[in-house]
Structure formats: structure tokens, C-alpha cells
């Protein structure tokens, strides 16, 4: 295995510009979707099959009753114990040599077990292709040694891309800096490999409790992890077989799903 790659999203640097959302769509050629009224600047309430970076805008008040606007660019966590991967019966969802989690579109059968298995609501069903989509960690770029599109475009370096161990060290340092500056509420989310889900390979520095950002405080998998995840999905792929793979797909008409 290669050294694990990761993204560290430091929300204390985020300006909510949504460059990451658009750069992701541009690189992955994902279609624009009809936006929803969310009551604020947020485009949609959650991830979709065509929105893989998702910027959240959370309005609060601080202790002095001054407005506070929490801005956060959310993304697939590429969990070390990945619910989607464990649930996938076909082996379409796999762990890359970089430790991230990707979906082979040609193998996915559209069963959607992964959708309900993700504790973060990341994986989304694409009615156009009849498969599921989520952040690929720009596997095509990262395989060639390039940054993910979102990390590259981020104006304030709120999103950083690199080796997990180095980014985790950086995150801890940043946390200590913020605490020293009096930003006591700052916490790290998912950086600890001994923590929930064996740590997340896209981890965060948050300025409030995870629940405020719509993240589970203690993410757990709906299924009990018995076997090492890669083994499980590999085994599942053999059991299900190609016929079943195709059978689950629901291909819609008209919507190309951006997968060209």
C-alpha cells in the first residue's frame, strides 16, 4: 500500500465561497442541478450524486449575541472503516492504494446498500445512470500526483491535500494554535485513527460541536464490522456475480448523470 492520502478541511479558514463545489463539478464534469431554497446561501440540504463537495452555512449567535456564521465545506470522509464499502455487495466500492474509497461505476449495480450504510449521508443514487456517486478523491488526479480539484482551487487553503500523517500533525498544531488564541471551541473531527471508524481520511477542524454542522458526534456503522473492509467487499463481489450487478441497475432516460 502506498502512504495514505488525506484531505484536511480547516473550517476556521473557510470563507464559504464554494469554489470547491464548482471546481469539483468542473473537473468531474458534473451537471448543474436545480437549486433548492434552503433558507440561506446553501445550495442544497445535503450531498447529491452531482454535488460531492457541499458547503454548509450555519447561522448562530456568539456569547456576546453577535452574529456568527459557520462555514464548512463537507466531503466524503473516505473512512478507514467505510460503511459504504462494507455494505457494497458487488465490490464496486473499493479502497484505493492511497487509502481512499472509490466506486467503480462499471461494477456498481445500483443496489443502494451503501447509501444507507454511510453514516454521513455522502453516497447518493444517480437516477440517470442507475448507480451511486460520491467524491472519488479525484482518483484520476491523485493517481498522477496532482492535488484534488477542490484542494487545488481553495482560495484560503481551508482545504488541504497531502499525506494523512503529515496533515494530521498539521491539524493538531493548528488546533493548538487556535486554542492558544482563545478559540476554545475548535475541535478536530476524524483526524484520530484510534477514534470512530478508525479515523477519517477527510478530516476537519470545526468551530463548534459536530452536531451543529450536521455531523454525527460519534459516527458508527449501521452494520457491525466483522471482517476487514476490503476483504468483505472483495468477497461480496464474488458472491453476487455479474448478473446481479446488472439486475440492480435502474437506468433512467435523458439524464446523462455527468458520467461521460
Amino acid at each position: 500500500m502506498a502512504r495514505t492520502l488525506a484531505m484536511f478541511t480547516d473550517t476556521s479558514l473557510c470563507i464559504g465561497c464554494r469554489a470547491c463545489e464548482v471546481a469539483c463539478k468542473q473537473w468531474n464534469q458534473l451537471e448543474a442541478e436545480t437549486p433548492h431554497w434552503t433558507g440561506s446561501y446553501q445550495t442544497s440540504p445535503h450531498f447529491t450524486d452531482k454535488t460531492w463537495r457541499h458547503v454548509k452555512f450555519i447561522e448562530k449567535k456568539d456569547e456576546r449575541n453577535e452574529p456568527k456564521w459557520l462555514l464548512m465545506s463537507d466531503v466524503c470522509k473516505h473512512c478507514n472503516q467505510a460503511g459504504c464499502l462494507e455494505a457494497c455487495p458487488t465490490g464496486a466500492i473499493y479502497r484505493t492504494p492511497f487509502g481512499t474509497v472509490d466506486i467503480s461505476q462499471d461494477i456498481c449495480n445500483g443496489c443502494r446498500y451503501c447509501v444507507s450504510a454511510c453514516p454521513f449521508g455522502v453516497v447518493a443514487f444517480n437516477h440517470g445512470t442507475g448507480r451511486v456517486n460520491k467524491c472519488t478523491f479525484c482518483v484520476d488526479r491523485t493517481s498522477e500526483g496532482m492535488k484534488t480539484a477542490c484542494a487545488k482551487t481553495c482560495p484560503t487553503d481551508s482545504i488541504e491535500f497531502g499525506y494523512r500523517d503529515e496533515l494530521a500533525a498539521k491539524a493538531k498544531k493548528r488546533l493548538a494554535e487556535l486554542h492558544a488564541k482563545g478559540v476554545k471551541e475548535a475541535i478536530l473531527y476524524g483526524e484520530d485513527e484510534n477514534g470512530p471508524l478508525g479515523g477519517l481520511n477527510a478530516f476537519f477542524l470545526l468551530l463548534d460541536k459536530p452536531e451543529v454542522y450536521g455531523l454525527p458526534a460519534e459516527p458508527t456503522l449501521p452494520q457491525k464490522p466483522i471482517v476487514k473492509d476490503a476483504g468483505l467487499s472483495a468477497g461480496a463481489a464474488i458472491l453476487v456475480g455479474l448478473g446481479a450487478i446488472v439486475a440492480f441497475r435502474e437506468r433512467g432516460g435523458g439524464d446523462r448523470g455527468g458520467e461521460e
Partner: protein
Amino acid sequence: MAVSRRDFLKVSGATTAGAALGGLAGLGFDLRPVHAAATSLRIKNAKAVPGVCPYCAVGCAQLIYVANNKIIDIEGDPDCPHTEGALCPKGSSTFQLSINETRITKPMYRAPGSDKWEEKPLDWMMDRIAHLAKKTRDKSFVEQENGITVNRCDGLAVMGSSVLDNEENYLIAKLARSMGVVYLENSARICHSTTVPALGTTFGRGAMTTNLIDVINSDVIMPTSNWAECHPVSYKWVMEAKGRGAKIIHVDPRFTRTSATADIWAPIRSGTNIVYFGGLINYAIQRRKYFHDYVVAFTNASFLIDSNFKTPTDLGGLFTGYEPAKRNYDKASWRYQLDADGNVKRDPTLKDPSCVFQLLKRHYSRYTPEMVERVCGLPKAKFLQVADMYCSASGPDKTGTISYALQLNQSSNGVQQIRSLCMLQLVLGNIGRPGGGVVALRGHSNVQGATDMGTLYHMLPGYPGMPIRDAHPTFKDFIDKETPKSGYWTTKTAHVISQLKAWYGDAATKENDWAYDYIPKRASADDYSHQHMLVAMLKGKVKGFICIGQNPAVDSPNSHMGRLGFAKLDWMVVQDLFVTETAEFWKEKAVHGKDQSVDPKTIQTEVFLLPGAPAAEKDGSITNTMRLLQWHSKAVEPPGDARSDAAFLYDLGLRLKKLYAGSKAKKDRPILDLVWNYLHDPKDRKVEPKMELVLKEVNGYATQDIVDKDGKVVLKKGQPVPGFAALKVDGSTACGNWIYSGVYPEEGKNLAARREKATTPGDYMNHNWGFAWPANRRILYNRASADASGKPWSEKKKLIWWDQDQKKWVGGDVPDFKADLPPDAPKLKEGPFKGLGGQDAFIMRPDGKGALFGPLADGPFPEHYEPFESPTHNLLSKVNTNPVAKVWDIGDLNKLGKPDQYPIVLTTYRLTEHHAAGMSRHVPWLSAMFEGHFAEISHELAEERGIKNGDMITVSTPRGKIHLRAMVTGRFRPFIINGKRVHHIGIPWHWGWLGVMPSAIGDVTNDLVASIGDPTTYIQESKALLCDVKKGEV
């Protein structure tokens, strides 16, 4: 981790798709074919073409990846020093400006009275346009007026755009002026036109003083614009500075994404910036927080003013010399006291009651913290906290920077609002120093360049004024009156003559005053601006209109009035990427909006819509907000008949020359003598000119062999001049725009196209990237980074200093000063730096000093007046509104609201994800970022009016009403103004009736805006209006 600047990460053992599969293969499965497909990098073998983002003026360099002659990806250029490869959402979506199904690729024609478009051949369109342009010109041309040659054509109006390249704007100016056009404007007029006189009067040049990267050196940063949202990529330097310990104070009526990053949010009511900055100046003076030594050395604080001069503190809100009948000032007393030798009298102790410092102190003595609270609605305690924090950014070891944008510009006293900010920076000693400066953030990619190129009614390229009939009947009058007697502007004659040589070649001779009469003369200083132009259309004076890359039907103030004007035109040409509202103003639900139909049969305007090309499809340079020219190259051919704006202009010029060929009329000489040869390929039916040739002309070249005193040829005929110092008054040089001279110093050497790494250690601003005018200086007035004796103020804040051994100024920037003029040098008696001495850091000012006292149309000091629509009377004086501002008399179309009917303050603004209406609403990825048009309103107002978040509401002013959704938020709060609660709302202005998806379609915010103009630049007042808000669509 070692991530290289090119952002390629060396992943051990897994650098290619194939190798990457090793890990999985180990599990017993070989998914290689699947993964090979998934991981093939589509840009791997693509060509990377240098691009520049066409949206805002941060000017993010891009790489445009091209394969098989198709753009497949557009990303930030990671080598770009001021962006480090980042792009905002607009920049990230540039791909869809090119690859977009809704782009127009064929010329479209709308016959008079027709209700539909028809496709026409490009050649037919161009012939017809040239014919109509000639017809309108010939009919409305005035050769003589009051016995003065004016060569003016009032029937034609041209609107260029600040998203066009420098070369395109230059061609517009050159062609339009030669046609006699005086109604010439670009979109900079309605966004940052006030910047030019504000910064020009205070510092000498109307441009941002500093460099975006240099913000990292600031100790306190005070955005008074919505910096993070409107210029996100440059905000990286603010966040970087914050990481290094800088404090951020955000001044904005609304809590925004910028406020979210700030240490303090200081909300002030729209339109009250002068009270806020005046309050800070007062605080700095009263608490002795100003930088005394800097103020004495580098500002006119010590200069004595005519003893008859009085400020509004003593004259009830007016300066000396107000003439009510003329709504004008007699400025006779607004001048320095001179001694017998003609030198300005000074008091370096700053104690003389007539000195500028004492007048300033008295003037702002009324701007107390209590007054700030009453007028701005910013509680005194918070103001004092802000004042203490910002004024700490002063002195030898500290600097602070302030950004501003349209909240200050778009006002009936916009120039003065900006000047008040500039003066605060002078008082604190923050100009010309690292971490200091005034950060003028422009919204369009080339606001700076389009302004520099003079596609503005009042000026020629490079900032000479446009001649005015009565003031400048002859070339001598023009030069004598427009050229100061001291300071670097004394070189103006050489610039003007070289420009006329560039335009008219051999036809410009000493004998005919360099063809001075070929340039039209304005009949009055109070005409021809953007708003004047729209009113002139409404009144039937303007008959033909060429609109390139701008969308006034939606973007202009009082845009409903503008659309009514379009309906009175004989003809209109629109050149753009998409069908804009301007091009389609004649549709049934367009002129009056969706609620009132107009029968297209009744609109006789003949409309031509020509398909344009975005930056990615053409060569040219763009000057970003920090005066940095960057070249972008044509990545692909524009599709179909689409072509660059330069090609349209060049083609039009060629056709006009053909139509006028053989004419003996004097009035046609400017067109016939126009130097118009940019070498297009004769087989190219789109007539694309060679843009490097335009840049070379802009840079300047020798019109004949130029020899030195020994007879040696120093410049061959046709050779580019190395810089503006080489320009001559004898016609031996031609130069399109002197301030850009040096960008193309040698044949084939285009410094705007330079994308190199910094070679000097510590060159954090990277002087090897592009070219910053003037002379590649990155921080203007940098002489002030050293003290009077030439030593750095401090080690921490050093930039350039005097090196006694080398006898020259040295350091980390190109000195913005005479390189070998010692700090103790007396004033020079001659030469280009005439009248300047070793401590005159502001070389473009006649007196060499930063102007705390700087006469403008509405006073030498900024004084607060309320916006024309205001919830309160003026608490500082009995003069409620700017006594010299312009209010257009167009009847009911310009009715003003009173607070009893319209009690709510309304400000307009833009969003990160949207831009000029002709662009972002046609880009699907951007259009999908917001659900639709909305207004941000406070919980308190929502409760009063029974409005819930997401409800449709109606916002009205006496000019119009719009329907949109209410976004109820704690980010707006009522203000307490003079003890009374005042609601304040905000509305983004992007929407119009055309767009790529329903979320991109909405009512036109600018229909709410009045026709009011700042007295100096005639910019509109669109930041502080009164409105009413009702629930539902009423």
C-alpha cells in the same frame, strides 16, 4: 510534505494508474482494466495555454487545457504568485463560458418592429452596421460650435466594457474618438469611476496603491468592502495575515462571509462612510495616534491655506465659495498661501491655524464617537474599540491596510467617501509602505485597464482629459491648462503628442498641432457620462448605440429608464457571448418588466447581435486591480461566427474607411487618416487583428530613427520604446498609452506574457510575473517606505531606501521615485521631475505631497451629506444632501422616496457566485448556486411585516418594484439612527429575465435605483436608497 509549486505530489510507488493498482492486485483481484479507465488523467497529454480569469479584477492566472482543439479543463495556474493556483467558483466555472450550449455563434438580426430574431450572414450584418454608423455620424456631426472646431458626433454612443482586454478598449477609444464619439463609456463608470479622482487627488494616480500579496505585511486589515465574497482568491492574503497575527475589522451594514472571518464586525448604515472615516481621523488626531513624522514629511499637512478659506464646521455644512444658483463652488480660496518666490508657505510644527493639519482637525472635530453612533448607528463603545485597534496600525513598526469597493463608490459623494479613507491612511502613515496602502477592489477583470485605456467620456488613454470646447479650443489651450507646472505630470505634452502620432501617423504634424482637432471636444463637462448617455437616448439625442460586453438593461442604474431609451434608438449593436437583456429589450415583457407588456411592433429599433469570444478564445492583456498586466493566449478558435471584440472593432474600422474613401470633407479626415493596420490574415473572414501589434502601439515606438547627441541611432524607426521616459515632444515617438510604456520594450518581448519565477531572493511580489504599470512598480509611492532622511522607518517595514554608497534608491521594489535623487535634494528646477525634491514621495502630485487638503467639486475635505434618499436629516449640518451632486430631471422616472412612505434603507450588492448579468446567469454551474433572486432582511423587520423566511415579498421604490424571496437572517439588524430604529435590507443585483435555468431568472434590482450622480464622476447612488417591503407579490 514537499508539494511542489506545480502541485504534483510524488506518491511513492504509485505515480501512475497502473502502478496504483498494485495494492488491490495483492488481494487477489485484478481490476486493472476498470481502474485504468477510472484513473486516466484526461489532461495528461493536453496542451496548457496561459489564460486569465475574465470575472473579477484579482486576475487569477489560469491554465486552459486543450485537446483536439477543444477546451477540456480550466484551472488556476499554480505558479501565479498572487493566487497560488486558486480560483473562486466563478473562475472554476470559466469552462462553461466557452463550452456552453446557449452561446450564440451566429449573428442575429431583429428588424424594426419585428418580434423575433433572424440569422444573418456576418458580412451582411457588418455592412449594415457600418452603413448605419456612417449615416448617423454624418447626420449628427457638428464640426464647428461657437467658432471652435469641435468635430463631435452626439448621435452615436459606444459602451465598451471593463471585461474587455486592454487592446480592445484601446481600439474602441481610438476608433470611437476618431468617429467623433463623445458618449463613450465602459462599465468602470458605474462601479469604480470615483476611485480615479479620489486616489488621484490624494496620491497622484487613480489606482490601487499596493499589491495584494503585500497584505500579508499588515498588522490590522480593515475591509470596508465584502472582500471575502467579491474577491475571494485575494482574500487568501488576508487569512494568511490573520494567521500571522493581524487583526481584521469588517465594516459593512450586513454580516457577510467577510465578517465571518473578522475579529470585529462594525456595521454602519449605508451611505455614512465619511462620518465613520471622519470619526477615525478625528480620533487619530485627538488621541495623537497619527504618524507625526510621516505626516510632516510626506503630506501637505504643514501647508498654509488661503486665510479666507473656511470649512463646514464654520459655515454650516458648506465650504467657502458656494454658489446656490449654480449648485457649484467658487474655489478661489481653496488654495495654498505662496511666498514671494511662489513657494508654498509651510509650518512644519503644524500649529498655524491656517495650516492644513489645523484645518483638518477643526473640520473633523464634529465627527465625534457620539456623532458616529448617531449617524452611522455604530455604538460608541464599538467604535472606540475599532478606532483603537485600527489606529494602532501606525508608526515605524506598524502598518494597516483598508479595502473598499462599491459601498463607497456608488454614492452621491462617492469620490469623497473614498478620499476620507485615503486621508485616514495618510494620517496614519500607511501609504507606500509594506502592509499599508489602499486596496481598491474592482469587480470586473479589467476595470483598471479599461479605465487606463480611456473608454470613459472624460479622458483619453493614459489619463489626459477629453478636451472641452470652451476651455480647450486649441492644442495650446489644452496643453497649457491641463499640464501642471510641477511634478511628473509635466511630461504630459510628450504623452499627448505621442498618442496623436500613434492614432494619426504622418497626418499628425507640428503644423496641424498633431491633429489635435481630430479629437472631438465636449460641449460641457456636465454631459456624456453613463447616466447622461441613457438620458440622452430617452430624449432622442442619441440614435445609434454600440454596446460591447455590457448589459445596461439590467446592470445600469434606473435600468427601466435605460430600456425606455433603447426603444427610442434607431439602431443598436450588441456584441456578447449570450443573448443579453440589452439585446432583447424589445420583447413583450422586457421594457417594463414582467407585469406590463409592450407590443414589439411599436419598437422601431433595429438590433444587431454579434457573437463574441471569451478571454479563453482570444489573445490580449488584462490589467488586474493591482495594475498588473497579464497576457492570455487564444486556446481555441471561437465557434461559428463568434469572434473577439477586437475583430469586430477592427472590421468596423476597415469598413468605415472604405465607406469614407475618397471623401474630401474635413470631418472625415480622422477616419481616413486613422492608423489602422493590425495585419489580419487576408483569408480570415473574421478579420482577427494581431493583438501583439496593438500592445506594441500602446507601448510606443519610434516613428523615425532617433539619434543621441553624438548622432548615434538609439532607436530605429519602428522599434519599441523602452519606457515612457523615451517619449518625445517632436513627433519622433508614437505611443498609445504612456503609462503602459515598458510593457513591450523590445520587438517580440511581451512582458505582460511573462510568467516566471521570482529571481531575487525575498521578492515576495514577484517582479518577474507580468508587468505592473508604471515601470513594473508593485507598491506605489514607495519612497514613503523610508523616512525623510532615506532610511527605512523600521527593519520590519522596510521596502526601499537610499543607498549612500551607490547613490541611488535600492530595495525590494522598483523605486517610484527619481532613482538617483538623494533624500536631502532640493526641488529640481527642470526635467520630468521638475519641482520635486528628495522628500516628495508623491511624484505625480504637483507639490509632491500626499493631499490631506485636495480640492474636488464638492470640497477639499470630505464632508458628510446624507444620501438623497435617507431615513434622517443630516445631523452634522443643515445641508442634507451633497449641494453639488447631479439629479437628472426626467420626471416621474426619477422620483425620490421620503421616509414616511419608504422607511427602510436598501443597499444593493453582489454575490461570490454571480457576476455581471451577461455572464454568470448563462453559466449553469453558477446559476445553480442560488435558488433565485432574494432580499436579505432582519428577523425584526420580518416580524413587523409578517414575513417568514422564504416568503415572496415586494420591494418598492418610487422608480419601480420587484418581487423576490425573503431571506430572513440575523446577519442584518435594525440600526438605531439618532435614537430611532431604522430597518436596513440588502438585495443582490444580478438577476434579469434571461438565464440558463429558472434560478437564474428574476426581477431587475437596478429598476429600483434613482438617477443621481456624484458631482465629479456622475456615478450613481445605488448603495443607499429608501424602499418599502411588503409580504407577497403585490
